[in-house]
């Protein structure tokens, strides 16, 4: 197994680290203390580990760290500033779209990715885009509502 030195930016902070060829991005992030991407299945079925990799919605449990050389990762923690919540995060709070919160970091990343691509989604669009992010607590309705409401607000 070959180790490789990679350059990686995580939530704005630069890292130069040696990773093994089989290290998963999810594990690397969590070892570095970015514990907001969660392990929910490890096989690409739940979306709890979602991050933005160079702006693209990515399942970090299916991504090898070695493939992220010279890339930028953004996690849910990186969306909100110290005292300023990301507007979608704010919307999720207002719509009571958080219960246990284990799906939440992945859900926010997926929601943001949708709004980046399509600032004007229909309810159908939101349902379709978020269907890979499982939530066992909320029944999804408040999450879908929060994303739609955020889209509406950023238009006005």
């Amino acid at each position, binding site marked *: 197994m070959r180790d490789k030195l990679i350059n990686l930016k995580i939530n704005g902070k630069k890292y130069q680290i040696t990773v093994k060829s089989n290290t998963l991005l999810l594990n690397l992030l969590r070892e570095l203390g970015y514990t907001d991407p*969660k392990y929910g299945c490890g096989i690409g079925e739940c979306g709890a580990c979602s991050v933005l990799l160079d702006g693209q919605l990515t399942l970090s449990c299916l991504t090898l760290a070695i493939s992220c050389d010279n890339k930028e990762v953004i996690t849910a923690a990186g969306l*909100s500033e110290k005292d300023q919540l990301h507007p979608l995060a704010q919307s999720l709070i207002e719509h*009571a779209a958080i219960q246990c*919160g284990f799906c939440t970091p992945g859900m926010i990343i997926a929601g943001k990715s949708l709004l980046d691509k399509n600032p004007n989604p229909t309810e159908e669009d939101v349902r379709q885009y978020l269907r890979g*992010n499982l939530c*066992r*607590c*909320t*029944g*999804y309705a408040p999450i879908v509502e929060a994303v739609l409401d955020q889209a509406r607000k950023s238009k006005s």
Partner: protein
Amino acid sequence: MATYSDCLKGEGTFMFNVVSKKTPRLDAEAKVKGLEKFASDIALPGMLYAVVLRSPYPHAEILRIDTSEAEAMGAVCLTPDDVPDVLYNERGVSIPAKTYRDRRVLPRKARHYGEAIAAVAAESEELAWKALKALKVEYKVLPPVLDPIKAIEPESAQLYERVFFGEEEIAIKNNIACEREITVGDADKAIASSDFVVEEEYELPRVYHFQLETKSAVCNPEPDGSLTIWCTTQSIHNVRILIGSIFGIPLSKVNVKKIPVGGSFGSSIQMNSIIPICAALALKAHRPVKLVSSREEDMYDHCKYPSRIRLRVGVNKDMSIQGVEAEVLVDIGAHQIQAYPLLGSMAGWLVSLYKWKNIKYRSRAIYTNKVPACAMQGYGNPQMNFAVESHVDLICEKCGFDPIEFRLKNHVGIGDEFWGQGPTVRSIIKSCGLEESLKTGSELINWKERGHPINKTGRYRRGIGLARGFHTSSAGAPGPAEVIDYSGATVKVNEDGSVDVLTAVMDLGGGTWDAIAKIVAEVLGLPLEKVSLSPVDTRTTVYDVCTHASRGVFAGGGAAYKAAQEVKRKILEVSSVFLQEHPENLELVFDPKRNDAVIRPKGVPFKSMTLGEVARNAMVTGLGSIAATVSFRQKTCPPSFVTNFVEVEVDTFTGIVKLLRAVCIADCGTPINPDGVKGQLIGSLARYGGYALCEETEYSEQGRLKCEGFITDNKIFTTEEMPFLNNIVVHFTNTYEPTGPLGAKGIGEAAGNSVASAIANAVYNAIGIRFTRLPITPEKVLEALRGKEA
């Protein structure tokens, strides 16, 4: 979706300042930022990583485990020889005399595929996996017992010879784990002389909890000989007591931290099987150890109780029920976690639904070589509800009764006795919103327009269905019962008038902690932001049994209410010194202008002190801290009533059933967190929509899960299976529970119990086929449609 102005009509609600108001979750910011630390997020310096060896056979004796190679790699190994020879039950809710014990930290015989039989810990996860592969196990493979009906035949293999019931060692015969019978009156005679007799058998599947966080633990042996534990649990005190008693550690030296849980739905009422494994490794290694289950391992750890329920009901022409005979068979899998109280509780759910007059209830729990079953949101109630609410529709169809009239005539309601947790936990119902629910719900869904299945044709056929249910709030009772149910809280006033609350009650995601903070704020006349829940552990809190049985708000909040009342009394006492008034002439109220709690002589608003001023004066004058700790048991177990109306669409070409519309009506007394109640109702639509339509963990003939750990092959609801936003309506009935804290009852489990029943009834209304076995998958729909045509 219904807005709050629509659904919060309750008259009582305007009398509160904080309670029943919509407030953002206290932990919301930490959660959206991903900063909340769950068990699997805990990392300690010098920590070892543990992985578990799981049985590749459903039934096999473990003859030998050779750890030499793994140990040579530097791993710490744990085999059945390394754990205390103690048989325990992982759930500390029933009194010891009514608890079956059949489990060892690591067993000498594997009783289901995927059961933990050994474990290793090493410096890295990778090394741990390598060491695990190097373990050599010799098995004696035994024939598996997979079918609960065949399990009781004499030629079937036996899972157990002996187990403990209380302190008594008892023999297990024919894999029958336990049995319960309950008789009221003479059901056989009453049914025989009824005008109509309706009989049917129902079957409910084995489904997996699929809480998003897999079971995890971190254990740290401390220099003073104590053990600190961070783990997924619904009861930190249960983990403390069990770890202490299994490993012989004084309870003052086991410290379990209260941390958030990533969903649970009943799967962590018991101490999860990996926790003592992690503890044993940490004690052996003298190092902190972390153990995180994979999703597949988690699927092999727990599931809902699958049940077969046969009902025979006698009814007269005037719609009055004469008697019921019920036979219940539960396939509990490889261990008895709480089957005995389950059988009692299922009897309770049955008797508390309708006035049967005469009851003959017989129930059996059977051991099989499958994943051990445990409570899952409803504890036997969704199973019983599906049988009874399907059966009620069947009776109405056969006898020509109106389903709403029939329910109104026969339901158990105000003034009747309710069994909250089996025959020993009973109380009289004092609040009930069922009548209002049926009326409002039928209007909201357009019940009268639902039509009859024989008139429905074409590829897509729609149907409307209804079911009503309830669940207990806690297992409170006036006297001693089979079940332990008490809670505790400490409330203390800080020197600036802010307040800390210390409670061991867990929040499984439903918002219990917010409810507790709001109850305390309301009693003390404080704005919510002045009340904080302290980060605590088992060392700093008094006992709470568990967040289960929908008791978080009712019993946990009830204890906080008591403690706040006690603190209020003390505040008035201390204030009397400064205000020169008798405490009885003083009042503690919320002052909206100052947005603070003030103490003043009754009717003399200008002569007042804020709580902060009182606390500060008490400090300066040496009067001391104002605080109280209580341990409190509720004396009642009031049911919350929930009614579900749904509309489905059946595609008769593909067999796919879609949930189009849902009206959820809840009577939970005062909704302390209206958002939380709504969250329970809508979340339950997804979970029990899945129960009705797609979820089941099927087994291969080799005793393995057919889904092999994949969620996709054991599908749960996603965004796309839910009704659209405008088609979900939530309504709260106008009730107030006199025995609950500020009028509240528990909603957690009630929210789900009747959802699947309503869906099945709606499917019948669409295509005229009654499904008696869940889930109603497309294959089953197509098969039934073909059968109907033939």
